[in-house]
């Protein structure tokens, strides 16, 4: 049967053409095609990976941000608190200082007043004594200018003495 017997001519042609086709297609078609396919798959994989990474980075960035924000808030609160405390302290201090100053001024004033008063009193006493002496002298000079008056006075004193 001719149908079942392979013809040698066709075998040779087939082997030759197929080998040639294989070489040509391998070099000119399959190599670039498979290369590009591989490259594309790699780039898709890479894109997916980097997207995943970006997502992760985003998440960590967000967490970082929140942490930073929280820290900043804490810091602010701390600073505010400290400032308030410092202000209070300064206020108290100033108040205390002012009070002390005032007290001291008052104290000093009192002391001065006291000494001034004493001095004035002393002066007044001295003046009064002087005035009294002058008056007494004048009175004595006027009243005792004759003997009768002197006698009368002596008698008056004696009367007073008796009464006592």
């Amino acid at each position, binding site marked *: 049967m001719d149908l079942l017997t392979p013809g040698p001519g066709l075998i040779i042609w*087939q082997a030759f053409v197929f080998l040639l086709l294989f070489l040509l297609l391998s070099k000119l078609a399959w190599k670039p095609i498979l290369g590009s396919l591989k490259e594309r798959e790699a780039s898709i994989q890479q894109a997916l990976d980097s997207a995943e990474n970006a997502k992760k980075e985003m998440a960590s960035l967000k967490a970082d941000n929140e942490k930073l924000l929280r820290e900043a808030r804490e810091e602010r609160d701390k600073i505010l608190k400290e400032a308030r405390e410092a202000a209070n302290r300064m206020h108290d201090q100033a108040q205390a200082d002012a009070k002390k100053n005032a007290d001291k001024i008052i104290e000093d004033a009192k002391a001065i007043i006291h000494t001034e008063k004493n001095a004035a009193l002393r002066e007044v006493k001295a003046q009064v004594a002087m005035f009294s002496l002058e008056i007494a002298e004048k009175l004595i000079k006027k009243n005792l200018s004759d003997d009768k008056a002197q006698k009368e006075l002596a008698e008056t004193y004696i009367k007073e003495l008796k009464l006592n």
Partner: protein
Amino acid sequence: MKKPFFATKSTFFGFILVVFASVFSPVLAAEEQEHEAEPFNASEVILHHVMDDHQWHFADWLVLPLPVIVYSEEQGLDIFSSSRFYDDHHQVVEYNGYKLEHNHIYLADSGKAVFDLSITKNVAMLFINAGLLLFVFLSVARGFQRNQGKAPKGLQSFFEPIILFVRDEIVKPNIGHHYEKYLPYMLTLFFFILFGNLLGLLPGAGNLTGNIAVTMTLAVFTFLITNFSGNKGYWGHIFWTPGVPLPLRIVILPVEIIGIFTKPFSLMIRLFVAITAGHIVLLSLICLTFIFGSILVGLGSSLIVLFINLIELLVAGIQAYVFTMFSSMYIGMAVADHGHDH
């Protein structure tokens, strides 16, 4: 992963089908013209269509003579047109000391067969097939280069899923991690068979992939690659099957050795039979019309032929798939790491 393939495949076939359906009616008409005059011999007509020929016979009024290239010790190398073997009345005549008998060329006086390297119908088909493959895949490759980093376009986007299918569904799972080395061969094999099958279905085309010389050559390539890449484990399994009692090993040895050859033999027969049988079925159904000489039968058989044609388109894809898959499997068995098997 298999489902999407058949889905795209069926649309692919569907598309080609429309083209074929529109083309096939003239074929039937041509067949009618061909065989009206003589007493009708169906088996002769069918075999004539299925087998190789020294001329390309489209119709009785359209015959393409092909170059005859013969070599014999007596006459040396001779190249001439096959039309020299026919006179004006399509009768076979002798030419330059050669005679043509049942498609074989002999020396006229001694009757000795010559070495025939003619560009026969199938060789011409082979050239067309190779040219088409080169044209298609070089433009696909160009598409890949042009659209680098962009979405595939045109021819490239049509063939890319098929190339990926061959790589990911046929070659990779069957060969394993050494697959890249064999991928160019497998792709060439797959598309050679696929294009050959589809071209063979064209009206007037030669039956290239249904020719046993072609399928044998392809099977021999797979056979050579399988056995040259066979590793220690592969040969160990054949000559000294591990894990089997000693007496049995002696029984298994010849079976294994026969197995080396039955694998490519099955490849050769399967493709040859599948494609040739399909053509024979188609032609037989067409011949029914002329056997019965009835328009009604012609109408009926034409409808059935149309249906069988659809099946043939499916077979064209399946046989390309099967041949490539079994080739991959045989090579995969030869390069597999057998260490973990036992």
